[in-house]
């Protein structure tokens, strides 16, 4: 059953990218706008308004940068092209919809699915650890950002130039350090439980290994 589920998810992903990102509908502005709207509605249905808004907020700087460069290139008719603005608009729609769609598909993958996957235990541990770290990382980002906004450099005495860049560098580094620790911890816990489970199902070893029995 789990293999069917994964196959469906992979097919949906392939269809999405095959048709909308690398395929025939890529250049259709109306289709891309409709897809973004649909994906946003699906995200609202599947997750929460707060989570969906969080994803949109994450995309806004990239989208605005894309549009700004598109406009600039369009005005200067860079490389003789006059479709820069249209091209940027398409990318500004494709980027958030692909990201939200991917995130949406991942919400359908549960820890139980990963446990039931017929793959080597080591790979299963990797996947479970990766999923745990990703979900924790997503939640912790807002708190990290909040803390970084409280440090004196972000309040006064420091030049504004580069402050935003420095803040985001710190944010990425903090997230990396956090995930590194979390992955280490999750992996240790997982491996320990796996060892315990394999011992406890090994003909009466439970009595020897469980401290409460």
């Amino acid at each position: 059953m789990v293999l069917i589920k994964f196959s469906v998810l992979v097919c949906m992903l392939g269809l999405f990218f095959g048709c909308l990102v690398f395929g025939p509908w890529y250049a259709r502005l109306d289709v891309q706008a409709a897809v973004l709207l649909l994906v946003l509605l699906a995200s609202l249905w599947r997750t929460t308004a707060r989570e969906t808004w969080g994803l949109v907020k994450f995309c806004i700087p990239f989208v605005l940068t894309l549009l700004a460069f598109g406009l600039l290139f369009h005005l200067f008719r860079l490389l003789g092209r006059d479709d820069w603005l249209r091209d940027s608009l398409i990318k500004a729609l494709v980027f958030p919809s692909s990201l939200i769609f991917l995130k949406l598909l991942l919400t359908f993958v549960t820890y139980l699915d990963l446990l039931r996957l017929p793959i080597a235990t080591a790979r299963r541990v990797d996947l479970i650890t990766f999923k745990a770290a990703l979900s924790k990382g997503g939640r912790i980002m807002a708190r990290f950002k909040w803390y970084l906004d409280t440090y004196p450099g972000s309040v006064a005495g420091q030049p504004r130039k580069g402050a935003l860049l420095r803040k985001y560098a710190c944010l990425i580094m903090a997230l990396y350090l956090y995930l590194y620790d979390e992955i280490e911890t999750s992996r240790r816990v997982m491996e320990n439980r796996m060892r315990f489970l394999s011992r406890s199902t090994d003909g009466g070893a439970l009595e020897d290994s469980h401290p409460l029995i």
Partner: protein
Amino acid sequence: MRILKGSHTLRERRLKLTLSRDLELGERPVWLQLAGANGLGKTTFIEKILIPGLKGRKIPFLYLGQDFRTQVYTLKALLAVELKDRVADDMPGLLTQWVTHHRQAKVLILDEFDKYPAHAQHIFKISRDFIRTYVTVSHAEQPVSPGAPFDKRVLLFRPAAREGGLLRVGIEESGPWS
């Protein structure tokens, strides 16, 4: 800095914090303790009223939050980006680097940081010569103190009443703890 008396409604926390008198900070060395039972909005007061007030007036401050084990990653990252030296591996070293790197700070806020008494003591020791106001939240019977010349003042959080789904909490200054 002055926080004006009056009510602050924080719907997402279902709290209405009412300050009975204007709160004046920064004129002379002060150690302000926020006291009261759990859930009465001490941390909320810090994060939603005090810190935005300090930011608005561009008063540099340092804040160590209740979830310090989470915050510590941002401390390490910030020091790695801003310092030329290697970031310390041990906690006292890290705190020393962080505090001394931000000597422009005038206010230091510690939310339940004295759950690490030795670190709290250390922070007071290395920041005393440039911090003018300490704000602390503590549930310890004997909170770690910055010592002289900081005048101890206590801001007491007391539940008053329920008001349309909100818990009204009165905040008033009381005499020093015995």
